[in-house]
């Protein structure tokens, strides 16, 4: 409903279609503000990952990770589950936490100790289904779920998209040490798989409904003519039930930066948080740590199920030059940005094409097939 209202107000706001870039005067961010991202996941399925960074200046693109901090998950019964630093700022543990305990998170960084209150894990219901539909310009993916006990009410989702991406030419050849050779079996660079994680805050609630039912909640959209569905696409949706307070945190965070900027924006609000600094009450912290289980579901979409979707990037120019073997090898020696693409059966020559048209790895992605594919 909120979206509807925001759209309504767009009418007045963009009557002359005028939205322009705005550059802020640069100000120094307060680097002592700690940013904590992550949740305590119980019952397995996904490992526990907490990321710690510091607030940075507006136009500074790189994060300021907090290295060398001590991060522990404390269970109600006294057990401590320490997290180890995998890379600067990323602290993780693949231990499976029992779901029948209360948990708090404790962080010690920069001489200060931060803690969350003790929370009972939210038992997340399973995802009913993932559906998708295609309209003139998008494919939209929806999640449906329900809680028969009407307890959960608030949900947060993340997703990981994986899609198959192919190079223009399927080559069985490679250019090694000045000569064209056959590729070993299995060493293919034609099909790759790319991944992307969700970048938006996806939350929903069923508080205005009688039953705890989430229906047609938009999870992702693919805009035509994205390459994600040139061949086959898959999305893994992870769902976590959250408390009202956690929902408010993500809702305010989303409103503060994901608004469309209409004439009727509410004021950016102070973010609630459940992380407190125990030895310096004035220290500012950003983040909200929830405790609960995670349920997942995966959806595949085949290109053949789509209506009028291209199956390759028509804008790529992948013209190949055809040569005899010797000429091809000569050419490839002098033009290292080309690779052999195909064998010309009539005459025994080769077609050579730019690397990007032959090696799918150059467009991002890996040529290793995921386990679930």
């Amino acid at each position, binding site marked *: 409903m909120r979206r509807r209202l925001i759209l309504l107000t*767009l009418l007045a706001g963009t009557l002359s279609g005028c939205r*322009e870039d705005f550059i802020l005067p640069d100000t120094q961010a307060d680097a002592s503000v700690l940013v904590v991202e992550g949740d305590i996941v119980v019952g397995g399925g996904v490992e526990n990952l907490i990321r710690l960074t510091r607030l*940075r200046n507006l136009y500074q693109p790189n994060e300021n990770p907090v290295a060398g901090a001590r991060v522990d998950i404390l269970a109600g019964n006294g057990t401590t589950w320490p997290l180890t630093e995998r890379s600067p700022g990323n602290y993780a543990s693949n231990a499976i936490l029992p779901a029948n305990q209360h948990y708090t998170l404790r962080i010690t960084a920069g001489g200060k100790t931060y803690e969350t209150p003790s929370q009972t894990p939210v038992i997340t219901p399973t995802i009913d289904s993932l559906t998708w539909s295609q309209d003139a310009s998008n494919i939209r993916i929806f999640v449906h779920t329900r809680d028969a006990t009407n307890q959960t009410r608030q949900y947060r989702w993340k997703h990981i998209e994986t899609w198959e991406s192919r190079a223009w030419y399927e080559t069985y050849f490679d250019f090694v040490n000045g000569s064209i050779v056959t590729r070993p079996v299995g060493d293919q660079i034609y099909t790759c798989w790319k991944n992307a994680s969700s970048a938006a805050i996806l939350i929903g609630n069923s508080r205005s409904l009688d039953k705890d039912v989430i229906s047609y909640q938009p999870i992702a959209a693919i805009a035509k003519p994205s390459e994600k569905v040139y061949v086959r696409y898959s999305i893994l949706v992870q769902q976590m039930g959250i408390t009202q307070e956690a929902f408010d945190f993500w809702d305010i965070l989303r409103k503060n930066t994901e608004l469309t900027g209409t004439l009727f924006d509410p004021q950016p609000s102070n973010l609630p948080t459940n992380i407190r600094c125990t030895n310096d009450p004035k220290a500012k912290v950003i983040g909200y740590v929830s405790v609960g289980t995670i349920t997942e579901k995966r959806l595949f979409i085949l290109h053949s199920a789509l209506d009028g979707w291209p199956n390759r990037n028509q804008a790529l120019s992948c013209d190949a030059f055809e040569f005899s073997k010797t000429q091809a090898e000569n050419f490839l020696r002098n033009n290292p940005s080309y690779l052999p693409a195909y064998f010309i059966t009539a005459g025994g020559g080769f077609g050579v094409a730019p690397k990007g048209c032959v090696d799918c790895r150059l467009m991002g992605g890996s040529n290793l097939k995921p386990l679930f594919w």
Partner: protein
Amino acid sequence: MVRRTLGICLLSGLSATTLGQDRSPFDSLVNVWEKRHQVSIRYDPRQTRGLAITEQAGSLDDILKNTLEGSGLSYLRDRIGRIFIFRGAPIDPQLPKGFFADNPTSPASTPAISERQENEAFIAAHANPIQTIGNRGGQGTNATITGYVRDAGSGEPLASASITIEGNSGGVSTDAFGFFTMTVPKGRHALKVSSVGMKEADIQVNVLGNGRIDISIQEAVRSLKAAVVVARKGSNVRGMQMGVEKLSIRAIRQIPAVMGETDILRSLLTLPGVTSVGEGTVGYNVRGGAADQNLLLLNDMTVFNPTHLFGFFSAVDPEVVRGLELYKSAIPEKYGGRLSSIMDVTTRDGNNKKITGTAGIGPLTGKFTAEGPLGKNKKTTFITGGRTTYSNWFLKYLSDASLRKSRVNFGDIILHLGHEISPRDRLYASAYISHDDFRLNADSTYTYQNLNTRLKWRHDFTDKLYLVLSSGIDQYHYSVKGRNNPRDAFDLRFGIRQLNTKADFRYAPDNRHDLSFGLQHISYQIQPGRLLPRNTQSLVTPRTVEDEQAGESSAYVGDQYRASNKLSLQAGFRYTHYRLNGPGKYYRYAPGQPRSDRSVVDSVTYPANQRIQTYQGPEIRISSRYLIDTRTSLKLSFNTLRQYIHMVTNTTAISPTDIWKLSDPYIRPQIGRQLSLGIYTQPGDKELELSLEAYYKTTRNYLDYKSGAKLILNEAIERDVLNTKGKAYGIEALIKKPQGKLNGWLSYTWLRTLLQVDDPIAGEVINGGNYYPANFDKPHIASLVANYRFNQRVSISLTSTYSTGRPVTYPLGVFTMGGSSRVYYSERNAFRIPDFFRTDASMLIENSHNLRKKVHTSWTFGIYNITGRNNPYSVYFVVNDRQIRGYQLSVFASSIPFATLNLKF
């Protein structure tokens, strides 16, 4: 004194005019006659210059008759044989009987008329006939004259016209009905009657006793020569009211407006002290007050949402408006209920001579008005006007696809009837409906409606006391419907209705006192929100926030006292009593704890009509005016005000889904105090008016909101509000040139308005508990309105506005969360968006000035936002490709030319 006789007036004019001039044949003849017949002959040599001398035979009477025949001159003799020669109707040279009655010493207390004034009176007497008021034989030396001042062309009564007696610095103004009552010494007077936009009229009266005189004055139709001097100078200097801005419809028409549509609210924004949060917003802010602290009255009907299309157009068609008065500082005691301002818009009563009308066609809207007398005896007049839009064609050209499928509709219509039952009884009825309808993207609609009616009866008990009794219903409701997904289809509604009854008395026992007193009662009923499933598939749970109902009663008494010719005082006292009634359910919270759903301890359900909460209190309105000299005055005022109804909004502008809320056990009435001081002067002969006003206001119990406050469908809003107190102060300067080929005004305002959380159980602090700028705090505001009339048909107008950007909360730093970069914000309103500057120009071309033509047409061309500056309304930040991008959103980003055709028939 003897000099005050009619005859003497003539004598002084006639005496000795032959000295030093060329002698005409008639002059020589008179010389001869005076010597021969031993008679004294008085005449104006200018009138007799061209007379030809004929027969010299016969008696003096014969000769005079023959000589004067055909010349338009006549003569008469008085009792002692003097001969007067004059033009026009004969004058009675007799003194009125009983003129020397009662006490011969009383003339000493009346101001003497100097010889110069007698000369002027003489000239006036020859231009206008003398009117006699009342009958002789009454007691006392003073008499009360009453009557109406009207526009001679249409019969419309003229409000705030001023009537003064020549030579006397006192005077009165007509009230909203055009009615005046004035106590004057008996005898001859020259009355000067003036009103904005009308020719100043001089009326000679001979007051014999109490009586009635109805005065009609001409509109200042521009002659072919230079502009005629109109409106009396001194209205701002002499006027009792301070902090009142008056705009006549002429002034409003000259301000170019969006798409060529004349607009009342937009013209209001050019006055000092009045700002708005941005273009396209509904409300306006007066002297640093919130948008809900202004009351807009249309013929005494309260209009809750006075705009169309998110504030682009006012909801009142200017064609039917007579004028508007905005009270900013010294609010008279008969008004109340809002803290910052009262805007009183009155429509005309309707031409009582013939039926006329106008029609206008602009790029986005079309409108019409019609007015005239009804019935044979012409005792009833009507005026009606309506407007509608056909702007859907405009939407098709927008770049945003979702907007192209949208539909916009709005319209309004007003009807006002006046009927004279008897000379002492008049009845008025008004009705107003406005409707707005937007369909966005073919699946969401937003509609709202104003519906107002009012019935008014004015009864004159005596010449000094009258009563206006009025009653009416004011209603506003909106509905938002969404239907994108059938499971979520909803219908959200809000409504407010008030029944408002008033009895206002006005008593003017003499020229020194002008008393007003009365009672008022408002019954409120609000439906704060109802959410219904829009169709049978929808899973939306119906939810209703329970209705609120309350009654607000007030009584007031006030007097405007003229202590001396220089000093006037106005003192008023108003007492209001507010009662919130059941049915209703209210929660009780743990003491000392911030109110939230976690600190509820109990709830109380009240049955219908049971008292839930009472608030009451006095209000004081004092103002004074001291005339330093005839050109300069000093005014001081102090007011306290109470407001029992609040608009609940946590956006910077009034949004379509804002709701009104009544005071309840947790939300206290807002209380305001204002002290202002002003100087008004009219220097030199340039006909400039200068004014400078300074003020200081404090407010208590102003509502601000906690972070993430949920205001729609919230049955316990007390959990999301913070009690704040505010202070506002500023200086307003205005230079105005009302007349001449070049006219207009320049205003500059410096103001600050600050808030501070004043809530011990807030649970949250803003700006660490210090004062922070309110959303509409704009330190510098300057406005220029200039019109230049080239000739009878063509005039141009220029409007220019500059203001400091409004405060905004800026991002201070960035962090990553949820896969994207996010923004960390500063303290509330710690920064400002870029300044606002806009200039508009328009040209008005009238096709013909022939007064007798059946249909008058005129064209208006113009450009809105000439400089094309895209004044940012909103500055916000979004994540784009994992990067923070800042955007500014403006409502008008380029110049917009427009053309409008107006017809008047």
